[in-house]
């Protein structure tokens, strides 16, 4: 597995390759949609971390949230967060609470970094509602 630190925060080329379209309209649509939806998922993951619930259901929920967030990141090229989600999902599925707890803390670092990149690119493409 690649080291999270070495990965790009947001790889726009990945997004363009995925959508097969590099128009400002597509980029804005994809990134603003991602920003809105991913924020919700990150919030839920952070909340779950604060409550530190470790039941089977809670871990399954965490795995599901990470799985969905990972898919979204893959679509828009948010490589760093995608890698983190992969680790978290695996840890949740394997009931590896130590890794889950330590890696979950990285969200507080990776997500704001991604958020600022998102806002910057959205502004560059003429999206004003950030």
């Amino acid at each position, binding site marked *: 597995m690649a080291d999270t630190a070495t990965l790009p925060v947001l790889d726009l080329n990945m997004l363009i*390759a*995925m*959508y*097969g*379209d590099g128009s400002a309209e597509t980029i804005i649509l*994809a990134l603003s*949609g*991602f920003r809105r*939806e991913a924020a919700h998922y990150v919030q839920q993951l952070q909340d779950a971390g604060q409550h530190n619930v470790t039941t089977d259901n809670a871990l399954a929920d965490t795995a*599901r949230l990470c*799985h*969905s967030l*990972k*898919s*979204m990141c*893959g*679509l*828009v090229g948010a490589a760093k967060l995608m890698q983190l989600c992969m680790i978290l999902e695996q840890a949740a599925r394997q009931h590896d609470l130590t890794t889950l707890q330590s890696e979950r803390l990285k969200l507080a670092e990776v997500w704001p970094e991604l958020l600022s990149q998102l806002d910057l690119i959205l502004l560059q493409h003429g999206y004003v509602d950030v």
Partner: protein
Amino acid sequence: MLLKNFNVLVVDDVVLMCDFLYGVAKKVPGCYAFKALDGKTAAETLENEAIDLLITDIEMKGPTGLELIYRVRSGSFASTSHDIPIIIFSGNAYLELIQQSISYDVNDFLAKPITADQLIRKIQHHLQTEKQIKSAAHYLALNSDFSAKTTVPDENRKVSVAIVRELNPKAEAEAVDTDTSGKKADEKDFLFWPEHATTGYFQIDRRLRNFAFNISCFHNVFVGNCKPVAIESERKRACEACDYLFHIAKNIRHKERRQQFWLLFNQRLEKLKPLAAELNSVNIKHHSQVLLLLKRLSYWWMQTCNRPIIQKNDDDGAEHG
């Protein structure tokens, strides 16, 4: 380029992913896309629309992707055929999941992420390539766990009349044993598919049923004096169902060697063609013309389905055209 219009349903509980899939499916020439953010909505769409291709994620709340696939393959949906191509689109490829998908004869397993171009090629490929799918009864027997949790109650099913009966050979034998008086008369009430019918025959069965259902809907809204827009909509569906029947029959005929069967079946389809053309063009304001057409369609139906195309031999139970 696809020659006819295909309905593609994409299912993913992640809005961004669902929109992406929907956008891609819409771009495929000849495709009309539907989207669903959860298994429940997807099931409703499968029930109400004749879906030709399903692309689904696996990990979802409500009916999961696998439950949805099971329900399609076991023929639980009134408007969607059980043998449509199914593509799983998932971020995880766990062995157990893949094994279960194989048992449901899923056509493809795509790992996320996938580019729009790759997905378009996959959609086109699966809409143009026929995969041999077993009968719905086979999948129904495969896993009864899901059905206990998710089956739609019978009263909610839209199609309640089966004009063609799918026979289990054993059950049929028992029925013959118990009926000593007139088994031939009973058998001639239905078209009998060959015991080892391929998916093609079941496709015809489904398309005939869909056509009957849609004509019946058209008839109901017409005689019920519904709004013209509703009548037009039902007429369109009936025409589409009829086109699909011709399309499927044509495709299967090219691959089949049973000359006698196709000679007879084709004659009956040829008689339907002018009626279908009239259905497409008849002015719904001309009440008597529409009623006359519906009457002629019902005659066609009785002529087609009251005379068996395939009959059984007395000695060994094998069928011939």
